[in-house]
């Protein structure tokens, strides 16, 4: 995917969010640190252009909630900032790449210590498969079949697939 493709996918996902939620009333976005933050910002920008409303935007770091703590070094990368109350809101979690689903599980866990949203939806730029948990995205930029030994990098500038360096 090139930068143009990313832009189009963001635009499409923004439309789908508005459609699914019948507008942006009671909708908030949370980007997962660090890869999901740019995407959440871009989706929020698209929503503003389409609907004239910029929904509340937060960031979430899930390092303290992961279930693979102890299996690998784990330092939080960037702060969690959710400067709004999302009780009763529909919360769209945004991440760059959906893979095993463990980050999303940790994020759901983390969210519960901030409040109780009405619904949680998931938007990702790339779904690369290989799920290990019963988690599925609501909004997808692109489904991209991969091998486990590949690495996927999704940025504004495009999506790269590389070999995992061991």
């Amino acid at each position, binding site marked *: 995917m090139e930068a143009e493709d990313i832009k189009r996918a963001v635009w499409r996902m923004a439309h789908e969010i508005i459609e699914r939620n019948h507008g942006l009333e009671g909708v908030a976005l949370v980007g997962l640190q660090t890869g999901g933050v740019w995407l959440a910002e871009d989706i929020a920008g698209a929503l503003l252009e389409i609907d004239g409303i910029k929904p509340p935007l937060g960031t979430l770091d899930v390092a303290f909630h992961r279930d693979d703590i102890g299996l690998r*070094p784990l330092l939080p990368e960037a702060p969690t900032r959710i400067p709004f109350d999302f009780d009763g809101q529909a919360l769209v979690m945004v991440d760059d790449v959906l893979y095993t689903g463990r980050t999303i599980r940790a994020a759901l866990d983390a969210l519960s210590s901030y409040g109780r949203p009405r619904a949680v939806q998931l938007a990702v730029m790339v779904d690369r498969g290989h799920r290990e948990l019963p988690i599925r995205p609501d909004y997808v930029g692109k489904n991209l079949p991969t091998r486990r030994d590949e690495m996927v990098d999704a940025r504004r500038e495009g999506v790269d697939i590389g070999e995992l360096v061991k």
Partner: protein
Amino acid sequence: MRHLLSISDLGVEGIEEVCRLADHFTEVSQRSIPKVPALRGKTVATLFYEDSTRTRLSFEVAARRLSADVMGFSVSNSSVNKGESVRDTVNTISAMGPDALVVRHRSAGVPHQVAAWTGAAVINAGDGWHEHPTQALLDCYTIRDRLGSLAGRRIVILGDVKHSRVARSCVRAFTALGAKVTLVAPPTLLPPAVDSWPVDIGFSLDAVLTDCDVVYGLRVQNERQSEALLPSLREYTAQWGLTVDRAARMKPDALVMHPGPVNRGVEIAPEVLDRPNATLNEQVRHGVVVRMAVLYLLLVADPNSP
């Protein structure tokens, strides 16, 4: 890093890492449920041979906010009073498989000895006159929070430096981060060979008061009088107490710090403690997040990191 026995175990990078982690835990502490599962399934044991309300409580709150289980041992309610040796107690506690052991003892070096006897990570919560590293870390975090950075700051450590583990840890930590530290005390309350420390020495508080960024007061104990280290507490307060008059001569944004508990009216006047630049409550609050950071660093983060 396997244990935290001295500030020297951390180095500059380690201190900065702790502060960075503490920022995250500050955010966690502001959540409606201020608790994360990071240490779920781990056990933190506290072994305190000396009375302490705030330090022990602070460690226990920190451990619980990380979802660790907490085991508490204190002299008064364990078999220590029956003459059980430190080694036997450590063996017993170790057999229960704790992941971290938080140790306080009235003698210097006990945490070092414990570290040799247990497989758990050992955190020094104060040993004799030697060190109290988590206190110095929370103090660094507090100064950093208020003043942005310690580099180039002038910090006066005031009072009974000789008998103070807090002072030894703070001097190591503050100077590592680039602060200029001046010890101000009657010579009887300065440590021996203090000229080998990386600090300036002053006799008069008045001489350094006007251009310092932090006055860090230490507790002066009554028994220093009977040991002939001080003629009287009254004389101490007159010469070295942070009185209202003296506090008024400090720079407006200069901080007044103290590790607590304060002898109100001896080291620091009560009115000075109520001023907005006195950070005592913040220090206590920061104690929890800094100790969360230390526990996280020792029990979760990459053992090869600083």
